[in-house]
């Protein structure tokens, strides 16, 4: 007994070492089980608060640039709406239809403005923290966009903060997108490295497009409405198996300077999820 105690006294640090390494390994490999891990992520309120303070300070210094970007984007969109509206009226001789569409669109989606409090770019699996959470109406799997384009999808939600998987997450981000006005679909995928370049994969061989055309969200999943910009086509490659195209995209969202975003909350999402669940249940019960 005495020997045992002596042994423990001399070597307890090895036991402690092994124990702590096991704990770390557990955290490292269990992170996918995300319900339990809010406390070990930047979505908990203490880290969230600290990031919020520094975010406030940083925001102040980038305001000019952000403003400029937004103004430019606004101008562009206004021109586009104006042009399309005129075209539409010319073709249909109905000048109220646009307004009706707009209100119908806004009724379906709730936009929750949020601020990015923390954002990484340097790893292969980047994550982003925003300052709105469950109490503000944010839920898991909602889309996040900014004035210039898509940002990502909500992954973890605490009461006042959420963690977002941005497009710049090589393993977990897959956003369904389409080529504007052409309707060919593909999946947005990022491989790490340059934060302004991503790829659209699985674009069918029969798709027609030109370099420089816009890629937008497809609206197939209920996460994003259709038509949110993603980026411009810069180059096209054949996929490895030769069955589809792979497009190199210059992302329209500037992830290095991202402050103001909106969380897109689709009111029909709960209904769709319930329907899907019901379908799954009926298949599995057979």
């Amino acid at each position, binding site marked *: 007994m005495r020997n045992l105690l002596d042994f423990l006294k001399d070597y307890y*640090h090895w036991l402690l070492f092994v124990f702590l390494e096991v704990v*770390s390994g557990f955290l*490292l490999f269990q992170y996918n089980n995300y319900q339990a891990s809010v406390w070990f*992520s*930047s979505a908990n309120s203490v880290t969230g608060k600290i*990031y919020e303070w520094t975010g406030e300070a940083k925001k102040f210094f980038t305001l000019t640039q952000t403003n400029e970007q937004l103004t430019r984007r606004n101008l562009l969109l206004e021109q586009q709406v104006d042009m399309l509206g005129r075209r539409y009226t010319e073709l249909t001789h109905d000048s109220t239809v646009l307004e009706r569409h707009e209100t119908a669109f806004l009724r379906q989606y709730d936009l929750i403005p949020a601020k990015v409090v923390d954002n990484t*770019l*340097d790893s292969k699996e980047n994550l982003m923290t925003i300052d709105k959470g469950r109490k503000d109406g944010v839920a898991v799997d909602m889309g996040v966009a900014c004035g210039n384009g898509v940002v990502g999808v909500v992954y973890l939600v605490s009461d006042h903060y959420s*963690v977002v998987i941005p497009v710049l997450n090589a393993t977990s981000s897959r956003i369904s997108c389409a080529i504007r006005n052409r309707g060919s679909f593909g999946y947005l995928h990022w491989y790490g490295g340059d934060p302004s370049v991503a790829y659209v994969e699985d674009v069918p061989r029969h798709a027609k497009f030109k370099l420089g055309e816009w890629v937008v969200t497809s609206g197939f999943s209920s996460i994003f409405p259709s038509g949110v910009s993603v980026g411009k086509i810069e180059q096209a490659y054949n996929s490895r198996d030769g069955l589809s195209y792979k497009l190199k995209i210059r992302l329209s969202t500037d992830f290095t300077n991202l402050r103001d975003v909106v969380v897109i909350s689709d009111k029909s999402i709960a209904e769709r999820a319930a329907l899907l669940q019901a379908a799954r249940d009926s298949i599995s019960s057979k």
Partner: protein
Amino acid sequence: MAGLVNRLIMFVVLLLVQVLVLNHVWLLNVATPLLYVYFAITFPRNTAKGEVIAWCFFLGLLIDIFSNTPGLAAGSLTLIGMAQTYLLELFVPRDSLENLEVSVVTLGWGKFSVFGGILTFFYCLVFFILEAFNFFDWQLWILRTICSTALTLVLMLAIESVRAKR
């Protein structure tokens, strides 16, 4: 007691500097300084091994919580804490004090750089292995390890030179 307070201040300062500033540094798309490893390197000689490991684990864990990488820094830093206590014995000069502080003043520039360099490199190696895990781009991975080690070491020696002058 003074030692404990010093440790605690160093803990908080290194934690905040890392998560608020250095985590966002990304020189030439490859080098991120992991300066908090300095905390593990500078434990005095006679500190109980269990104590070193526990400190390292908690610093790593807090950094993980801030940067959304649970277990990554905690696991790697615990390992470095363990390695430090054994590696230090090879570097202390003969007939030195039991509670020798680890700094350029006590070890000299050469020995401190080698000692710090080995541990920093070892740390970056483990950290990036765990982070990349599937070796998806091994050239980038080696480049990141080497550049981050160099950058961290430069920062560490800069801090040491300031502390040595005081």
